Every structure is written in structure tokens, then in C-alpha cells.
């Protein structure tokens, strides 16, 4: 009898551990919320992917509809080839565009897909033609400075153009 009760207690102990694992996997982690079983693959080429990472979400209208399967450099085009795994039930017109966006001010980067107007839809293995790269802060700042400099030049100031451009970055640092 005592031996039986020990076996029952050990069985309960192992069962409790299993329940804890199920709790961790289902309630406290992302298993079950998105299973990669039924997906199809699209490819998009970007000039610059910024800080995009593998397994980052693919969203349309803010809803997560897939994940990034892999990122690699295409050696012929010198562009980043990003493979997207999209849920099977979700289809997009073949002129849809992909953009690299950031969630919040400091959040992670993800790919946003905006639907186009064509009746034909993407099928597995297609390439998304219209893409927009990640916004790189440095190029954004230099664009802003160049346009400032151009404005200063066109208003007819007698100073030669190099002066504002060299003064510009110094001003941005402060």
C-alpha cells in the first residue's frame, strides 16, 4: 500500500511538471499563437534592411500575418533578399508593396505590406516588386541638411555653398 501511494505521488509530481511546461509554452510563450505549418513564401529585395531580423513579423494593416524566414545578400543585385512566410489564407494583389517599418519610437522593425489594386494575386515563390527600404537615420539627417543648404543657396545669400554644408554637420552634433 505504501509503495502504491509513493507511485501515485511521483505520478502526480511528473504530471504537475508537465502541466507547468504546458503553461509556460502556451500561456507564457508564443507557441500556438502562430504555427508555421501552413504558409507560402514570397521574396522581397531591399536596398537596405536597417535592423530587420529573422523571425520578425510581417504585418498588413497592423495585423501579424507572417514571419521573416531568412535574410541574405543577393550577390548579383547587391540587395538584401528577404524571404517572407505568409499565412496560407492571406493573399495579396500582385502589385502590393512591402515596406520596412518600425513599431513605436524604439521598437523592433517589421515588414508592412500594403495591398495594391490588381486582380491577380501573389502565388508562392513570387517576388514583391515594389519595396521601400528601412529609413536610416544618418541618410535622413544628411538629406535634411542638403535640402537646408540648397534652400540657403537659392535665397541668394552671397556665401559660397560649401560654408553651410560644412557648418551643417557641426550644428547637428550640438
Amino acid at each position, binding site marked *: 500500500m505504501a509503495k502504491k501511494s*509513493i507511485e501515485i505521488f511521483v505520478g502526480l509530481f511528473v504530471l504537475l511538471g508537465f502541466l507547468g511546461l504546458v503553461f509556460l509554452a502556451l500561456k507564457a510563450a508564443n507557441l500556438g499563437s502562430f504555427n508555421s505549418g501552413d504558409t507560402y513564401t514570397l521574396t522581397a529585395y531591399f536596398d537596405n534592411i536597417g535592423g530587420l531580423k529573422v523571425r520578425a513579423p510581417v504585418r498588413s494593416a497592423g495585423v501579424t500575418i507572417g514571419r521573416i524566414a531568412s535574410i541574405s545578400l543577393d550577390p548579383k543585385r547587391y540587395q538584401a533578399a528577404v524571404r517572407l512566410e505568409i499565412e496560407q489564407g492571406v493573399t495579396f494583389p500582385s502589385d502590393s508593396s512591402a515596406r520596412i517599418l518600425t513599431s513605436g519610437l524604439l521598437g523592433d522593425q517589421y515588414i508592412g505590406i500594403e495591398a495594391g489594386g490588381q486582380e491577380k494575386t501573389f502565388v508562392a515563390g513570387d517576388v514583391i516588386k515594389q519595396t521601400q527600404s528601412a529609413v536610416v537615420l544618418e541618410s535622413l539627417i544628411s538629406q535634411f541638411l542638403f535640402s537646408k543648404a540648397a534652400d540657403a543657396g537659392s535665397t541668394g545669400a552671397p556665401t559660397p555653398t560649401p560654408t553651410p554644408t560644412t557648418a551643417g554637420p557641426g550644428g547637428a552634433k550640438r
Partner: protein
Amino acid sequence: MSGAIERLGGAVLERLRVFGHHATFLVELLRACPVALRRPALVIAQIHAIGNRSLVIILASGLAVGFVLALQMYYALSTYGASQSLGLIVNLSLTRELGPVVTALLFAGRAGTSLTAEIGLMKAGEQLAAMDMMAIDPRSRVLAPRFMAGLVSMPILAILFSAVGILGAYIVAVLLIGVDSGNFWSIMQAGVDVRRDIGNGIIKSIAFGLICTFVALYQGYEAKATPEGVAHATTRTVVVASLGVLIMDFVLTALMFSTP
């Protein structure tokens, strides 16, 4: 001069001898495991002694750690207006680090010491020698069932520690502080990966279970057959197992989580 060199050489050889002794003991222990599996009742009885009896202290500690983590992290996170991420931070620190490590330290104190004392007293009472006389291998009859029970119990205890800790954090964060319940769970689910975070935590806890049980058995088996010898071995179990767990934790963390 030659005396110093002699002492240095002696010390190095002694270290090597101890290391080799540990390694041969582990190999003999592993070799005894399949034999012990033929009598699963022994292993089950040891899981009861090691696992079930440690359950209360593990669950209580897990709950307390979850409470305190939630309170402390809330203080830091609310400075950045990120208190919604409380669940994520508590979950990651528990499943990756605190669950396996704190469970292992408690396990060394709760189960490891009792293993060492039990086996040390068996040796002092010459029970192990008597078994040998009757052609019963004490390794497969006494040591191997305890070793396997430790390997099985430790991951289960670590999982329960993390699970209870997350529930404790939920109680403090959502019920006491008033963090939004939906955000608490959804941000946690978005940020925790089953294989990377929970799976690696379980691998850690298996490694720690091996270290704790092995150290406890070794110290008990090699204890001097006197009351002082057993007392000394029990102390050394806690010290060596805790240090081993912490060093192993650093190595495993560096291997598992060094890349973002």
C-alpha cells in the same frame, strides 16, 4: 628551492588525481544506470524522496521570487513608462536564469545534502561494503537510482519554479499594482520563444541536476567513514555543487544567449 618545486608538482598531481577520480566515478555511475533501470521501483522511490519532498520549498521560493521580481522591475520600468513589459521581463529572467539557477541552489541544499549524508552514513555503517560482499554492486543498487532521480526531478522542479514565479508576478503586477492583464500576457507571449528561452532553460536545469546529484553522490561515497567525515562531506556538497552550478551557468549562458 627544490622543495618549492616539489610542492608545486605535488599540488598539480593531486589536482589531476582528484579530477581523474571524479571522471572515473562519473563513468562508473553512467555505466550503472542501465542496470538500475531494470528495477524502476527504486528510481521511483528516489524521485519521491528527492523530487516530491523538495516541491514545497521550490514552489514557495518560486512564488516569493516572482512577487519580488515584479515589485522591483515595476519600479525600474515605470521610470521609462514601460510597466506593460513587466510580464516579459519577469518571464525572461525566470525561464532563462533564475528558474534553473535558484532551483539548483535550493536543490543542492535540500536534496543534495540528504543524499550525501545518507550515503556517507551507509558507508560509515559499512552497508556499502556489506553489499559488495553479497555481490550486489552498490553503484547500481544505491547510487544510480538516486542519480537518475536527480536528473528527472531537477528539470520538473525548475519548470514549476518558473511557472509559479510567473503566476506570482501576475498576482503582484495585475492584481495589486494594476498593470493591464491583457498587455501583461500578450507582450510576454510576443517576446518569449519556446525553443530559445524555455527550451534552453530546461537544458540548463538538466545540466544543473547532473552537477548537483553527481557532486552529492561523489561526496557521500568518498566521505571519511567518521561522524566528522560525513559532516565535512555534507558541507562540501553544498559548496562544490553551488560553485559548479554558477560556473556552468556562465558557460551555458555564454553559449546559448551571447548572440542576440
